[in-house]
C-alpha cells in the first residue's frame, strides 16, 4: 500500500516541497530541542512539506564543549533518533537534523553528524569531513572527521548532505554531485562573522555543480556567538528561491522541481566539462603544501 507521502510525491514526479527549520537550539537541552523540532515539523506539514532540514547540532546546540561526551548518542540506535523517527513516521515526512554521534565501537569517539530519516524510518547519515579548529571553533578537539560522502536514493530523489565548514571545500559537494545528488542539503551552525562567506559559498556550490542547494543555519545566541540564520533554498542557477530571516528563529518552504536541473545543466554544463586529468595534480600539490 502506498503511503500518503508516496501518493503526494507521485502527483508530480521530481517535484516536492522542502522546508528549512531555522531554530535557536538550547545548549544541552535535547528535550527542549526535540520539542522545537516537533513543532516545526507540524508547521512544515501544514505547508505541505515533504522534507524538512534542521541545522548542524540542532539536537544539542552548537557550543556544548566538554558536554559533547554526555550529549552524544549512537546513530541510529540512540533514543533521540528513535524519537524523531516516530515523529517523521507520524507526520509522513523526511527529516534531516544534526547531532553528536557516539561510536558504537569506542564511546569517546564522536562525530558531528547529519541524520536523514524518512517516513518509514532511518535512512542514513553523513559525518562531517572538515572540522573547523580555528578562531572560535574547536571541533577537532571533540570530533573525528568523517571519511565518506554517501548519497541517498529516496522518494525525493538523490539527496546528499554536508555540514557547515565542508562548504569551503568544493570537493565535498563535487563528490556528492558526481554520485548523482540532485538536492544538496548543507546543515550549518555559522556565527555572524562568517555570513558573507556562506552567502557566496552556498550559491557557488549550486552553480559549479548545477544542483539544488538547501542551506539551513542555526539562529540565536550561544556563548556570545550570534548564529545568523539566513537559511536559503538555492536553484541550480545560483538564484535564491527562498530565504529565511537573519538571526532569528524561522521556517521557510519552497517547491523543488528537478526538471530545472536538465535546463540549467544544458545551459552551464560544468559537470560535462570536468577535467579528471587535473585531479591527480590537485592531490599531489595538496600533499606538498
Amino acid at each position: 500500500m502506498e503511503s500518503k507521502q508516496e501518493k503526494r510525491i507521485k502527483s508530480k514526479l521530481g517535484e516536492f516541497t522542502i522546508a528549512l527549520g531555522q531554530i535557536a537550539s538550547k545548549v544541552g537541552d535535547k528535550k527542549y530541542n526535540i520539542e522545537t523540532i516537533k513543532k516545526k515539523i507540524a508547521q512544515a506539514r501544514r505547508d505541505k512539506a515533504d522534507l524538512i532540514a534542521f541545522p548542524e547540532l540542532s539536537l544539542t546546540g552548537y557550543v556544548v564543549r566538554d558536554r559533547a561526551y554526555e550529549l552524544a548518542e549512537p546513530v541510529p540506535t540512540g533514543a533521540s533518533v528513535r524519537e524523531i523517527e516516530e515523529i517523521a513516521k507520524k507526520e509522513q515526512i523526511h527529516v534531516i537534523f544534526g547531532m553528536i554521534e557516539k561510536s558504537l565501537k569506542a564511546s569517546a569517539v564522536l562525530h558531528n553528524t547529519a541524520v536523514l530519516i524518512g517516513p518509514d524510518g532511518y535512512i542514513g547519515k553523513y559525518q562531517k569531513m572538515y572540522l573547523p579548529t580555528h578562531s572560535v571553533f574547536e571541533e577537532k578537539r571533540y570530533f573525528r572527521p568523517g571519511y565518506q560522502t554517501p548519497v541517498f536514493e529516496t522518494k525525493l530523489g538523490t539527496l546528499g548532505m554536508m555540514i557547515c565548514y565542508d562548504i569551503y571545500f568544493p570537493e565535498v559537494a563535487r563528490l556528492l554531485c558526481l554520485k548523482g545528488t540532485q538536492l544538496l542539503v548543507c546543515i550549518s551552525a555559522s556565527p555572524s562573522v562568517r555570513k558573507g562567506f556562506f552567502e557566496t559559498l552556498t550559491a557557488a556550490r549550486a552553480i559549479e555543480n548545477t544542483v539544488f542547494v538547501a542551506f539551513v543555519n542555526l539562529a540565536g545566541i550561544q556563548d556570545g556567538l550570534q548564529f545568523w540564520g539566513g537559511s536559503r533554498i538555492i536553484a541550480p542557477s545560483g538564484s535564491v528561491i527562498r530565504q529565511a530571516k537573519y538571526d532569528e528563529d524561522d521556517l521557510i518552504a519552497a517547491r523543488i522541481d528537478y526538471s530545472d536541473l536538465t535546463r540549467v545543466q544544458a545551459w552551464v554544463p560544468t559537470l560535462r566539462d570536468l577535467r579528471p586529468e587535473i585531479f591527480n595534480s590537485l592531490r599531489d600539490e595538496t600533499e606538498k603544501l
Partner: protein
Amino acid sequence: MILNEDALRLDLQLTTDRLRRFIRDYVKKTGAKGVALNLSGGIDSSTVAALSASAIGGHRVLALSLPEEETRSSTDIQHSQMVAEKFRFKLETIDITPVLKSYFKTIPAFDKRDRLSKGNIKARARMIILYYYANRQSRIVLGPSDKSETMMGYFTKWGDIAADISPLMDLYKTQVRQLAAHIGVPQEIIEKPSTPQLWPGQLAEKELGIRYQTLDLILLGLENFMAPKEIADQLNLPPSVVTRIKERWLSNEHKRRAPLSMKIQYRTIGADFRLPYNPP
C-alpha cells in the same frame, strides 16, 4: 591590510541590533528582572546604558552614579542625568566617600601617596555596591569595558572590569564613539576625554601615552597578526611605540583571564575544563 579609519568602520545599525539582542537574550536566559550598571557619565557607560534601555526597556535598567569627593565632577553628574532622561532609565546616586574613608582608615598598610592602589579601591568599592543591587534586585551587571582598554589592561582587576556581560568589549574606543553617535548619546559625552576617575585629573590618553585614533589602529593590526614593524611603517610611527603597545597588551593577559592554577588533576578550571557559557 590597510590600517586607516575605514578599517575601523562598522555597520552601525547591524552592530546596534546585535548588541541589543545580546543583552535581551542574556537577561531572558538568566531570568533576571533587569540590569544594573555603573554610570560614570563617560562614553562607555553611557553607551551601555543607552543600549540596554533600548534593548529591554528603561524601566528594567538601574544606573548607579557613584561619585566620591576627590574625583566628583558636576559635568559628569550632569551628563549621567542627561543620558538617563534621554533614554528613560532609573538613575540612583550614591556618594561612596564614607565607604572609601572607612577602607583607608581600616587598612593598616594604607598609604595615600600610592594613588594607583588607592584608586583601585574606588573601582572595587563601586563593583561591590553594583553587585549588591544585582543580588538584591535580581539584576545582571553590565560592564562598560571596551576593547582598547581591555587589551591595554587599562582597568582595575576585579573593579570596573567586573561584570556578568560586557557588551562593548569587542569594540575599540573609536568604534564605541561611532556607535554612541549612532544611537544618540549626546555629543558632549562622546567628545569628552575619557577618564577612569581613580584620582583627580586622570586622563586615559595621557596615561596611555597615545591617542585612541592611533592606539586602535595599532591594536587592530596586532589583532590581525601584523608584525609591529609593518604596523609602524603603515602608521608612520617609531617601531618602539608599536612594540611598547604590544608588550603592554601581552603582559596584561593576567588581568583578562580567570586566575591561573597549577594543573594537578584530570580537568582543570581555566585550562582544559571547557564548559558552555550557559546561564542557569
